[in-house]
């Protein structure tokens, strides 16, 4: 795992076109050492005793606020997951559990079959990741580099789906998946039905296309002159240079699939196929509290770990990359 952490910065080639495009000032300023960039207060102001005191109170207070409000509930969940139900009910805010009950985690994993739903979620997340990746990368390649006749119209059609709020499609999409055009396949209660629709993300296609647009043209032209075909150009040159944007698409695809609720709820009525988010509310109604809390902890452990490993990709502002990229 630690190699992954260390490799994250390495996936951003220094001179390569970042999402920002070539001629914008380096984005790295935010993480630059202190003192290089200036913010609202000046160094002079920060030295004034009154301002300094106010900043200590404000920044310290903000840190305490964030710790309690954002981290607090998760720490509380971690504590309560290994606390017997009676203790949690009697004194929910006790800082330290009276008795520690590690078996909760095991009970949740084995006896209420959380492992089944966990693996369902993993399969759906991986399928969703793969679909989004294939569609975005091949689509971006066609729209940005191959550019056949009519590709502008096609790009317009892709972008126009952004106008349609996802939930509006809930019912017609369900009926489509129930009886696929031409083949009459029924994908309800299959993982395919759960993850394939995630591939239709105009956001991803636009993100990847813009990234490809910013790749150095000379390199692509040179490869063309050397007789590089469409496939070699794709696998040999374009893909290896696209690691930053592929990383962004990947982390958001996996997290979104793990968080998704409405679509799997509709398309997977069979409990044995359901992911954690859909199954948990039903389980919570019939299970003892300490086991439910253990199940909740298990369900958010992976996305939180994922976030901690790839936080740079999450925290540098996904939307900004899309809006300005």
């Amino acid at each position, binding site marked *: 795992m630690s190699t992954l952490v260390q490799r994250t910065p390495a996936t951003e080639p220094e001179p390569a076109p970042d999402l920002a495009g070539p001629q914008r000032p380096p984005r790295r300023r935010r*993480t630059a050492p*202190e003192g290089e*960039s200036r913010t*609202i*207060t*000046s160094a002079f102001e*920060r030295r004034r005793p009154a*301002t300094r005191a106010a900043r200590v109170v404000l920044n310290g207070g*903000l*840190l305490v606020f*964030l710790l309690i409000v*954002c981290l607090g*509930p*998760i720490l509380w969940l971690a504590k309560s997951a290994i606390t017997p139900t009676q203790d949690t009910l009697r004194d*929910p805010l006790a800082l330290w559990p009276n008795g520690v009950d590690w078996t909760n985690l095991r009970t949740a994993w084995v006896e209420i079959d959380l492992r089944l739903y966990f693996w369902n979620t993993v399969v759906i997340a991986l399928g969703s990741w793969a679909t989004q990746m*294939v*569609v975005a990368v091949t*689509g971006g390649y*066609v729209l940005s580099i*191959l550019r056949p006749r009519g590709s502008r119209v096609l790009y317009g*059609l892709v*972008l126009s*789906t952004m*106008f*349609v709020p996802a*939930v*509006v499609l*809930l*019912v*017609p999409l369900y*009926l*489509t998946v129930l009886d696929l055009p031409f083949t009459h396949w029924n994908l309800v209660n299959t993982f395919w039905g759960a993850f*394939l629709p995630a*591939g*239709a993300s105009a956001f991803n*296609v636009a993100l990847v296309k*813009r990234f490809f647009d910013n790749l150095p043209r000379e390199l692509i032209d040179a490869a063309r002159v050397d007789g590089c075909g*469409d496939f070699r150009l794709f696998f040999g040159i374009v893909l290896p240079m696209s690691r930053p944007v592929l990383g962004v698409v990947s982390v958001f695809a996996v997290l979104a699939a793990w968080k998704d*609720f*409405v679509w799997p709820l*509709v398309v997977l009525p069979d409990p044995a196929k359901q992911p*954690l988010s*859909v199954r*948990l*509310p039903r389980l919570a109604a019939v299970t003892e*509290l300490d086991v439910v*809390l253990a199940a909740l902890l298990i*369900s*958010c452990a992976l*996305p*939180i770990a994922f976030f901690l490993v790839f*936080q740079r990709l*999450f*925290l*540098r*502002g*996904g*939307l900004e990359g899309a*809006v*300005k990229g």
Partner: protein
Amino acid sequence: MSTLLARARGSAATVVFLLPMLLVFGLFSWWPIVRSFVMSLQQTNLVTPAEFVGLDNFRAVLDDPLLTTAAQNTLWFALLALVFGYPVPLVLAVVMSDVRRARGLYSMLAYLPVVVPPAVAVLLWRFFYDAEPTGVFNTILGWFGLGPVPWLEDPSWAMPSLVLEATWAAAGGTVIIYLAALVSVPPELYDAAEVDGAGILAKVWHVTLPHLRGIMLITLILQIIGTSQVFLEPYLFTDGGPDNATLTILLLVYDYAFANTTGGDYGKATALSLMLAGALAVLSVVYFRLTRRWSE
């Protein structure tokens, strides 16, 4: 001859690369969009063959007494989220942008709730919202001599409780967007403001906030589009109750189509979805034009 061959091979490759996008968008986006227009004019329940009924579905939806309730509740949710939820990320981001030490820790903490799966968050908060005096939030209120509050049990408290959780879950994402935008404030502007004798608050008001104006409009539109489609919170917290106080438009769509007893009315469900989409389309167009302008 060889160029002809190369061109043929080239277009074959183009087709191969086109296929995933065409198939996935065609099947799961374009076709359902077209279909929703057709279906809203049809009586469909999958049992009997679909028949065209003109605008009957729209009429039936508009006649449904629950529609007014759902529309009011959805507006109420969106309004509460706007009043309480919209300023929070802005204030957090402006203060955080001036933190000198361990700013990464601040943004990490702020973003943490965003990665918690919403279903997990709601189930956790449902426990926090226990109406008994021994509930987690009521215990905390009790320290200050307040409460106990019937968080989810009382019709007038239920919606604010939902908004509180939704704000907790979503604010971090917006904070990150603002922080990213704040990096690009030209330092000269702050220097110039100081030369003119501006204090810290004056700088925030005259430099920082104006710089964020564009992105604030975008997050505003995104928030309204998002909150008008709220489903998960009312579905999992209260299932529309108590006394329909948290029945939202999307919950009504879901009930038309999938509820156990009354479900299966796909025509009515799509008709209502389309009406919501029409209302949101105006906002989407504005959003699209804005982002286009910024990206050029």
